């Protein structure tokens, strides 16, 4: 598809699609070296509806924004046609050593880059073919589409909110969303978006059972207050009450160290035009204490133009 197919581009749906490597580990796909006895089924099975949706919608591209590709200077996009290799998670190497292979929609990447620049953002194209794609990107994409038969675009998370302050760069994530939406429209893509992040993000400081990481008898929410925060936010999203969501975002980030701080969800909502429609809830679960929800914004058969 080329940019000549103007104005037919649309966003079909957006997904809150968390990326704990435990989900891939629990599933035991052939790409992942470590093997498990299962675990985290509540979350893993929540992705089933997403997988079905990908088969039905057959989007041209899945665009993911990942908190685990942290960049200090601006926002980066993968821009190598084919990336493959072994991605070993530096934090959980015993759970995630994944042989990945992905086709990148470089034309769309370049237009996102250009549109971002036009809006005043610092943007960069990652063109090194030996780049090791981060586990956040891979886990989200695997859980959404384990067949890897849909091209992808991955966008980095500028880490200014973590380094400077919570509210730094939030405006930039909104602009990045707008740039993404414009690029989709210009390139004529039928796109699905993925915000690869957890909700509450305070977690255990030790592995509960190092001998059996998938020991579900040791998995639980980090705290009742963190759980209540997650439910409050999920409720707002289910109601489509994005005004309340954005209003409480600073407190949510501060009190639960919510990973939405990395900008993934803000980017996605902005790209979708901040749609005040009820998000569909597919499942919630904790992973080493963090709160994770799989949720869908179905923008309808016609998509959002």
């Amino acid at each position, binding site marked *: 598809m080329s940019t000549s197919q103007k104005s037919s581009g649309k966003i079909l749906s957006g997904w809150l699609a968390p990326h704990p490597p435990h989900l891939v580990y629990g599933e035991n796909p052939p790409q992942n070296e470590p093997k498990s006895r299962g675990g985290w089924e509540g979350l893993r099975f929540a992705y089933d509806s997403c997988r079905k949706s990908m088969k039905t919608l057959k989007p041209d591209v899945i665009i993911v924004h990942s908190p685990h*590709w*942290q*960049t*200090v*200077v*601006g926002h980066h996009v993968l821009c190598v046609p084919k990336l493959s*290799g*072994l*991605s*070993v998670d*530096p*934090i*959980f*190497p*015993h759970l995630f*050593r994944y042989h990945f292979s992905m086709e990148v929609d470089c034309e769309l990447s370049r237009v996102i880059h250009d549109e971002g620049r036009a809006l005043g953002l*610092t943007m960069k194209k*990652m*063109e*090194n073919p*030996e*780049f*090791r794609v*981060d586990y956040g990107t891979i886990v989200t994409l695997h859980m959404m589409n384990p067949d890897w038969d849909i091209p992808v675009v991955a966008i*980095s998370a*500028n880490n*200014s909110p973590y*380094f400077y302050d919570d509210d730094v760069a939030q405006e930039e994530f909104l602009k990045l969303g707008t740039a993404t939406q414009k690029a989709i429209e210009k390139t004529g893509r039928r796109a699905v978006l993925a915000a690869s992040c957890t909700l509450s993000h305070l*977690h*255990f*400081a*030790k*592995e509960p059972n*190092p001998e059996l990481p998938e020991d579900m008898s040791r998995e639980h929410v980090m705290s009742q207050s963190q759980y209540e925060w997650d439910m409050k936010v999920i409720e707002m999203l289910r109601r489509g009450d994005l005004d309340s969501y954005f209003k409480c975002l600073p407190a949510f980030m501060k009190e639960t160290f919510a990973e939405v701080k990395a900008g993934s969800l803000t980017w996605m909502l902005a790209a979708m035009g901040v749609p005040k429609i009820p998000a569909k809830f597919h499942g919630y679960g904790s992973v*080493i204490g963090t709160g994770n929800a799989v949720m869908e914004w179905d923008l309808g058969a016609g998509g959002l133009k």
Partner: protein
Amino acid sequence: MSSKIIYAWVPGLPHLLKPELNPHYAELAGACKVLAEDFKRQNVKRILYYSTQWLSVLGQSVQMRPEVKGRHVDENWYDFASLDFNFKTDTALAAKLIDESRDMGLQVRAVDYDGFPVDTGTIVANRLINPDNLPTAMYSCCVYSDYAETIKIGSLAKKASETLDGVTAVVVVSGLSGRYFTTEIDWREDHIRDPKDDEWNKKFLAALNEGNWSAVKNMKADYCQAAKVDMGLKALAFLEGAGACVSGRSMKTRAYGSVYGTGAAVMFGSI
């Protein structure tokens, strides 16, 4: 059997491998090379790295793979930082580090995986200060170990090193002020982003040069807060535990400069 420990502090950003870009990078890289010569003169047998770029979250990690090799592409500086690496692990030291960590009640994981992404900082440091490819050990920087616990980790590193014959260089890989530029800059114009950070860095380095450990202790919290110091000075905590910060010792600055707005220094512990 006799054992001895010497200490160094080096920056770990890949810009040091591009000395042609900026005189600061050249000066810092040059000081690292002098450090390598010092190691040779001191007959260093092994290097123990503590890099603030190798993060662990659930407890501690120790590199245990006998040969760690591959090519690492930095996630930020990928356009000039495709870094080949080939570490020979001192497995005896690594095993001791694990034993001592467990004895201290820490949860620790031995890392032994093909394709494990060794952090940019350790690779950059090793390239500059270890031209003879001496055996190495690596201990992770646990996000949830606070300053006090990191001192304990440094002390277990000392204990582990002292069980081995010969000289061990304990090298922390870390930055100083952490206020990097958030937009693209001309490399030639790189400088400490905030003049106040520059003042703080110099004040800190002066105290280290004098071995004025009470002054260091007094300024530590304010320095960290004011200059957004890399990982809350955990590198210093590790050195402190490992025995570098005692009366009569000091950390001498060999070079100081900026890397993308942050503060960077090469320091060598007095012998």
